[in-house]
């Protein structure tokens, strides 16, 4: 970061122009429930939650160069713990939600301990296998997880039962979490992750403890995925093995890629695109899985840089290097 010339004034790390954009986007997002139907408000809530999941995956994929196929499991564990703690144990949401997020972070820590020494395809394979183990446990450990039937339970506190109120609560949470993630990837620590993505050996020879940095990055990413999972548990009041299944991780990764790897906020664009597609498709056919698979294939072949990445490539801005993040 060696900008020549006067430094722009920054408030909370953002330039004044960025603040204007953020305020406008938030104002529009906050006004949406006033014009949308209850069903559409539900969809918008889902987009926000999955946007957070996609961003948490992007912390690793876009900034540390490690694509995880196990984040659906981390997300789902948080959901399971939140529903179990509130419906079966009888804890209040204020206690159940932190528990869920802690559980997700712990799962992420276990994943990270095993995965940080690998990279590329091995990282993908390992996180996939670990995620599937979590899925297998959720499916088979019937006494606790309810097996294939899953767990049901009202998690939302009374004042958030309405669609609009809940949407606004999720919006506030999403905004805070997104800001935290943004600060994280731009922090000196976040920059070391970028360094690892670009050249692991160089970072090593500069004296950085590469596995430790990846470990912390993974744990932080899992923490945010856990927040998304807790929000989803409140949104759905239901978890089942499909919440932790590979499909969940895949959707998260697809949203992240569709938005644009390494763009962070692209996660919301990707989530909005995929959820919209899912709902449009579901009106015509029950074959969402096929469409999801085809979308994956098409994006991999034609637009691996995602929506934002492709736009950036078409409209090059001065001073921005064009990277094909997924191209290594």
């Amino acid at each position: 970061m060696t900008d020549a010339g006067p430094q722009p004034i920054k408030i909370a790390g953002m330039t004044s122009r960025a603040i204007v954009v953020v305020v406008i986007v938030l104002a529009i997002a906050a006004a949406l429930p006033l014009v949308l139907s209850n069903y559409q408000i539900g969809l918008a809530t889902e987009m926000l939650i999955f946007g957070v999941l996609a961003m948490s995956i992007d912390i690793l994929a876009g900034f540390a160069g490690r694509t995880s196929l196990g984040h659906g499991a981390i997300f789902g564990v948080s959901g399971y713990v939140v529903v179990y703690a509130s419906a079966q144990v009888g804890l209040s949401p204020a206690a159940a939600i932190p528990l869920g997020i802690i559980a997700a972070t712990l799962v992420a820590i276990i994943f990270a301990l095993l995965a940080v020494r690998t990279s590329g395809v091995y990282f993908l394979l390992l996180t996939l296998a670990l995620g599937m183990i979590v899925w297998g446990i959720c499916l088979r450990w019937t006494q606790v997880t309810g097996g294939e039937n899953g767990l049901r339970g009202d998690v939302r506190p009374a004042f958030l039962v309405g669609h609009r109120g809940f949407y606004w609560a999720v919006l506030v949470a999403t905004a805070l979490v997104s800001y935290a993630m943004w600060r994280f990837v731009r922090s000196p620590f976040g920059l070391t992750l970028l360094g690892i993505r670009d050249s692991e050996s160089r970072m090593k020879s500069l004296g950085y403890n590469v596995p430790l940095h990846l470990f912390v990055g993974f744990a932080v990413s899992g923490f945010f995925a856990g927040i998304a999972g807790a929000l989803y548990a409140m949104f759905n009041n239901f978890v089942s093995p499909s919440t932790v299944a590979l499909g969940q991780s895949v959707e998260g990764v697809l949203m992240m890629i569709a938005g644009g790897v390494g763009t962070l906020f692209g996660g919301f664009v990707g989530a909005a695109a995929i959820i919209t597609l899912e709902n449009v498709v579901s009106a015509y056919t029950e074959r969402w899985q096929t469409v999801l698979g085809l979308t994956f294939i098409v994006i991999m072949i034609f637009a691996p840089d995602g929506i934002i990445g492709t736009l950036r490539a078409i409209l090059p801005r001065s001073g921005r290097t064009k990277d094909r993040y997924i191209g290594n």
Partner: protein
Amino acid sequence: MSAFQLLNGLTYAALLFVVASGFTLIFGLLRIVNLAHGALYLLGGYIGFAVATRTGSFALGGLGAMAAIAAVGFVLDQGLLRFVRGNELRQVLLTLGFAFVLDDMALVIWGGDSFTVPIPQMLKGGMRVFGVFYPTYRLFVLATGIAVFAGLWLLLNHTRLGALIRAGVDDAEMVEASGVNIRRVFLVTFLLGSALAGLGGLMGGAFLSLYPSADAEILVFSLAIVIIGGRGSLVGVGVGSLLVGLLNTLGQVMFPELAYFVIFGPMALLLAFRPLGLFGRAATS
């Protein structure tokens, strides 16, 4: 562990070997992690089931499954993967998308019921081995697993194609530079690996039965085997299959609900010391 459970573990390991050897052949040579391998297994099972019930011949079912899955593999490799060559992550994610499509199509055609491939008359019943009465069919699976291992070992170590495959695993560019059409070796390997998944589907379909999430279970075991055994090593797949098969059986006996967890322990331990697996070597490129 009783002799009966030991045999269960061994026969399961034999099935896993057939499926995972195809997976690791493709991974080792083409560097493609084919996440559609589980879906190919399940589809092979369904097709084998359809052929075997129509013709009344188990052997024809096996041939049909292998031929059909090799054809699907051809479409995957030549129709889709060719556009993302040389890019590992895009390849992996593309095969994942392909797996979703295959699974969903299988659900459309065969529905959510579970099917069991009919066992031929001569393999029905049981026989006495190591002092226990054991199903003949599962012993047949064990024998097939050993035969596939022997066949692959001969292929890899005593044929020209095998020499090319082994050379390709170590350094594909050098093989190409010495005047070999490595693309064709790649394609043959891909078809062979796919056919093995199809064969596994038929064999597994007769004692594990076929149902919509069977592909995910086989895939996670195949991944574990390759992670344990190492990329592209036949002995590695053999050892990995034995470990995973026996541990899984042991786990199901001791902690039925957490059986999945039992393969996790050795995998974790191994990765801490040998990130590339027991028999894996670092890629030369």
